[in-house]
């Protein structure tokens, strides 16, 4: 049942992604409304799918890549929907929904079979560490989308080509302020994710920090976001430079998340642990 719901969710996400892109091209209000409904329904089926999988497995489904990708997509859509309650950032859907759909697609091509939890991972810290880290990633994904939008809009205004996408994107300040808020929420979560991870590592392997590649890259990512936050708060960095930095930091984050799992071997590599 949870697999079926998972597939349904993927399809719904894909449809709403296309819808959001159509919306940004045609600026039709009704399309936007329909997409929001679709995405909300998708989020609901996704939530149920994750819940059912949790029951079936007997532990939070945050263990392998299939599950973490799925959770990431869920968190991204969740954060987006939450955001829509407070700030209506038009056209964000056209960037975020496809990204969430991609995460969902990545999840769907991973082996999805249920797995018994290895003893090393049996701990309360597993769901805490994984969910906090993934939530941080979802928020940074949002910041990444906002940065892309910022750069697009910034180019339009700078180059004085004010047709097409210019009318569809929100104002520079709005994008920048939202970006900063994402950073201010995402950064503490990332920090918390690393701390809880370290505590869990101590419990499981007897050492808080063992410099495995994922840990090292997490630290690098953390430093990048820390630098960005620092520059924003002290010097007043903003706009284009901050947006580029956000994109670079997110790329590092994605590498930490994926590269460390696939390319580099270590305690975190989902790939080797559960084969």
């Amino acid at each position: 049942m949870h697999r079926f719901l998972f597939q349904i969710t993927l399809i719904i996400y894909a449809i709403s992604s296309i819808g959001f892109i159509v919306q940004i091209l045609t600026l039709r209000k009704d399309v936007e409304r329909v997409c929001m409904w679709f995405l909300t329904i998708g989020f609901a089926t996704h939530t149920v799918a994750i819940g059912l999988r949790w029951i079936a497995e007997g532990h939070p489904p945050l263990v392998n890549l299939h599950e973490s990708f799925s959770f990431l997509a869920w968190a991204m859509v969740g954060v987006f929907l939450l955001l829509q309650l407070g700030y209506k950032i038009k056209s964000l859907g056209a960037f975020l929904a496809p990204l969430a759909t991609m995460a969902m697609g990545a999840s769907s091509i991973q082996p999805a079979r249920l797995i018994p939890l290895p003893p090393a991972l049996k701990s309360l810290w597993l769901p805490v560490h994984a969910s906090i880290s993934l939530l941080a990633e979802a928020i940074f994904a949002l910041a990444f989308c906002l940065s892309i939008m910022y750069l697009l809009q910034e180019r339009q205004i700078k180059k004085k080509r004010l047709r097409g996408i210019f009318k569809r994107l929100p104002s520079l300040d709005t994008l920048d302020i939202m970006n900063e808020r994402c950073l201010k929420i995402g950064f503490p979560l990332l920090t918390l994710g690393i701390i809880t991870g370290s505590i869990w590592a101590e419990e499981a392997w007897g050492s808080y920090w063992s410099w495995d590649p994922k840990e090292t890259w997490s630290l690098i990512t953390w430093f990048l976001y820390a630098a960005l936050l620092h520059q924003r708060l002290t010097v007043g960095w903003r706009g284009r430079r901050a947006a580029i930095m956000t994109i670079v930091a997110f790329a590092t984050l994605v590498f930490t998340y994926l590269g460390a799992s696939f390319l580099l071997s270590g305690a975190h590599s989902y790939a080797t642990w559960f084969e």
Partner: protein
Amino acid sequence: MRPGSNKPRIILLGVNHKTAPVEIRERLALKDIEPSPLELFSNLSCCEEAVFLSTCNRVEILASSKNHEDAADTIKRLWLEKGGLSTVDLSKSIYSYKDRQAIRHVFRVASSLDSMVVGEPQILGQLKEAYRMASKAGSSGLILNRLMHKAFSVAKRVRTETRIASQAVSISYAAVELAKKIFGDLSGKKVLLIGAGEMAELAAQHLLTNGVDKIIVANRTLERAVELARSLNGAAISLDEIEDAMIEADIVISSTGAPGIIVKKEQIKKILRPRRHRLLFLIDIAVPRDIDPAINDIDNVYLYDIDELKDVVEENKAEREKEAQKAERMVEAEVIKFISWMDTLDVVPIIQKLQEKAERVRLQEMARSQKRLGELTQRQRDALEILTKSITNKILHDPVVCLRKGLPENERDQVLAITCKLFGIDDGNNNK
């Protein structure tokens, strides 16, 4: 032109934002000079009528003159002398137009085709005010009255029948739209106006209604800055203080008449840090430009000049040019009409004299024949009256129609001269 023709000429002398820097325009505006420029020029013997127009962007003298080929030079000499500019060579700055060109210029100015911001609406009001002053002082007469009224009606036509006028309004609209795309919400934003021109005022008002928080006006003459600041509920500063003001400001609108760059790239670079890299939106509506175009290369700083703002609103340049052409055509048509009216001005007295002469001859001949005809009945007298009148009318009919119809430019002077000669009438010039 016949030698010593009685035909009135229209003369226009002036400087505008394109031809002269603000310092010269201000001196030529002859502010606070006694007697007033209007009196000054209308008292000249070569000047039959005069209208004096002075705005932020232009100073012009419009005059009509008879019999004086060198009227333009006389006016110019007096003007420069009173402006304290006799020693300066302003032959490039001051434009001087006569007749057709002068009429066209007046119409174009009234229609806002010659404005810094084409289509800006204030100029018509200023021209009306100038005319009101002239008619109050009694310095405008038959010709300038008609010229002014025609100018107003051309302007009205251009405004209603082309989309030229909507352009100026749309420029401040575009400025607001862009500001919104940069800042989102305009509340709490500060605007700095450099230069207190009409267009800047219009844009500032537009920004105010869109929620802008505070307006600071910087101007070369503090007096004008204070005046504008009061009407916009803002603060006034002098031009030296703009650097500090730019640290605070989010939107800068520059519209001075200065000949060179006022805001330099280094200045902006210097204030980036104190501004904490806040976005800065600069609008340069001055011609020539006030703000160094290279400033647009700085991160988080956006500079738009007037043409670029126009591009924001107008879908394409071709359309805009089409509208401008349409307006120019309307102006041209009115110029031709006005010229032909002017032409009738010296035809009318000749026709009158022709008719007077015929009537005089008729009456004389009637009186002479009276004796020979002897006693006539009333009916016979009436018939005779009708007979003689219709003979003179019939004879004069063709020449009068010919004159009235308007003659080709190259022939008309000659034809008028011949008419006078043939009929032995005095054309009003060879008297005494």
